[in-house]
């Protein structure tokens, strides 16, 4: 039964079940089962909302990897939301003094576990390295200012510590690239209404298993527009509570 020791995920990460797991009950159930490769893999990913998880080859963000994220800030919030709200995973955002934290809270992020370093100044690499030591999800803006050596060092640091580095910009050699484009807001007419929801096309690419590009259209905030038809895979499968803020369309 030595193999089962691997299956019992550490108590600090109860919700590593990303895509197809049993959610909060995963640890308790896994403790009595033999390890399966899927469950071992689950312990190495950070959960993301269901529709985004379908874009990612491992069903979640792999720990120790670097993800280059380009696009609206709401995409970053969506990536952080499930991990932050369901498991007590810490996140940090470096270099964004104008982050809308009310929007982050509405997206589901637990803001008491969201650390902010708005102005790292010239010490961006050192600060990011220090955060990677203790925080599981570190999002960094202004990465174009980093030198190649610093980029390499931070990649190695993330891998060593098992943290996920979300680079808000271009990152040479990133394991995963997420591009959010074509954001369209609905809800405003000509002098009436109010903004309700944003529709976004997200493309996932990268190295290794993520090399095959996948695309999805997501509705990121608010209720979906009334004219949208729910698509076949819109119904939430695994999560007990359907994610109200993130729905896949088409």
């Amino acid at each position, binding site marked *: 039964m030595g193999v089962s020791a691997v299956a019992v995920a550490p*108590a600090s990460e109860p919700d590593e079940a990303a895509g197809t797991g049993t959610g909060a009950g995963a640890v308790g159930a896994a403790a009595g089962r033999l390890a399966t490769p899927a469950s071992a893999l689950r312990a190495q990913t950070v959960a993301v909302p269901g529709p985004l998880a379908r874009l990612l080859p491992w069903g979640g963000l792999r720990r120790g990897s670097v993800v280059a994220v380009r696009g609206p800030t709401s995409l970053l919030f969506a990536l952080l939301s499930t991990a932050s709200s369901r498991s007590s995973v810490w996140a940090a955002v470096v*270099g964004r003094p104008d*982050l809308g934290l009310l929007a982050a809270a509405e997206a589901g992020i637990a803001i008491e576990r969201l*650390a902010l*370093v708005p102005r790292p100044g010239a010490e961006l690499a050192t600060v990011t390295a220090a955060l990677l*030591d203790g925080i599981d999800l570190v999002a960094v803006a202004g990465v174009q200012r980093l030198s190649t050596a610093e980029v390499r060092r931070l990649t190695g640091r993330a891998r060593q510590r098992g943290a996920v580095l979300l680079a808000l910009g271009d990152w040479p050699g990133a394991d995963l690239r997420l591009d959010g484009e074509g954001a369209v*807001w609905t809800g405003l007419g000509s002098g009436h209404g109010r*903004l309700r929801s944003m529709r976004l096309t997200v493309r996932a690419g990268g190295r290794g298993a993520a090399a095959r590009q996948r695309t999805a259209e997501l509705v990121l905030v608010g209720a979906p527009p009334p004219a949208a038809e729910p698509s076949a895979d819109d119904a939430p499968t695994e999560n007990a509570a359907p994610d109200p803020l993130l729905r896949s369309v088409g």
Partner: protein
Amino acid sequence: MPIRTIAVWCPDWPVVAASAVEGVPPQRPAAVLTANRVLACSATARADGVRRGLRKREAQSRCPELVVFDDDPDRDARVFEPVVCAVEALSPGVEMVRPGLVVVAARGPAGYYGGEQEAAERIVDQVAVEAGVECQVGIAEGIFAATLAAHRGVIVDPGRTPEFLAPLGITELVQPAGTAPRHREELIGLLRRLGLRTLGAFGALPVRDVASRFGADAVLARRLARGDDERPLAKRRPPIDLAVTQQFDPPVERVDAAAFAARQPAARLHELLADRGLACTRLEVHAETEHGEELVRTWRCAEPLTPSGINDRVRWQLDAWVTAGAIAGHNTDIDTGSRQRGGVGPSGGIVLLRLVPAEVVPVGSLQRSLWGETGDGDERASRALVRVQGLLGPESVFTAVLGGGRDPAQRVRLVPWGDERVPDRPVEPPWPGRLPPPSPATVFPAGPQNPAGADGAANIASAGGPDRAVAPSVEVFDADGRPVGVTARAVLTAHPHRLVVAGEPERAVTGWAGPWPVEERWWEPDGGRRRARLQVTVVDGPALLLACENSRWRVEGIYD
């Protein structure tokens, strides 16, 4: 056999400290409360029937003139410093166990002053004269027995410590009440229910039976009950490179700077120890002042120190030194009616701090879990954030707390890490004019600011500039090219057709809604603040939240 130890105990220290600070005369009954329950009370209060553990209302009903104070361990430690200095003047090598209790090896003073009884009397006199505080002294083998002897003011004959301990109640193992760890309290409760009411009865049990029935902590407790060595012999002196040194420039002279200065070295020390599977049971805090004085204090703790325990003790010690320095430097003419007279304090600011773990034990309970991820993600994150604060300063790392307000920016308060998370404004009031969700993902503080030429690019890739927090100005034009404004009745003068954000090409407006007026503090004599909000969607860009104030448009938020 543990060494003969002198324990100097100041009864009801939290109350004494609080009364001294607040200037309440000692004959008035007073009590210190924590979580609405009495933690310590003065002798006069005890005579009236106030006991530890009572609720506040009950205590006040028993003693109507009771003066109540809140629990403040910082104050207790700070005010205790002169007492420690007084004892130290008589005999070096003093160790603090907690505010109110210090221990020192008996051999030195006994030899110097010609006997243990004489040494005890000298200490009591010295503390009374130098610090103006009553204390009791007890001498026995080992710190636990010496403390119990100090509670009773006796000097136990050499070698008779087990006989002294035997008739004492088993609840002495969890003194002072409320500070022992939960498992120890449960053990004592269990032993009492089993009929073992005295230390002697517990100590007489065979060690093997105790270990198998109750566990490792019970073995330690049994050792204490018998008067044996307090700690398993695994203790050792660590190599010197486990010391943590920190220099301060400018020197630490203020209490709040001391509190912050203590955080990072304490976190580093704990990490160093935890990496090697060790925890500290005796901590030496060394400091050097800018005039070259060297200060040392040893803190001792029965349980291995947790990170917050190390942090607290370093903070208390720095606090005590800085305060003593302030008093020693400026008290030439101050009327010393207060009790904090005396004490050898530093004469300048502190420039160097060194933490030396003088005694460590290997720990299982505080060790990191097997997979390298600590069982406590919060602790790990806290250490990382404290380290970043060490790099950039205390006002560089924040968490957010939501409060009330009308703007997305107003509702968020950024709290520096380590400070109390309290919102600016209460959440419950309805806050008319509040913006409904969804809120913009990028916000600028909505204040009257001169709009600098910020690059209005709303893509998160480029958002990293230093002055991003300035709200960009924007101009809104109608179809004929005339600027659009908002009338006093909150109606737009024309439909918006195009807008130009400072520093960007112009964009056509595809949809808009508003204007929604927001009036703040209209009752103020200067009229308060009035603005009108507008949501717009544009071609080739994110949706924007605009605000018009004093006929000028600004971007309040970007929906990206």
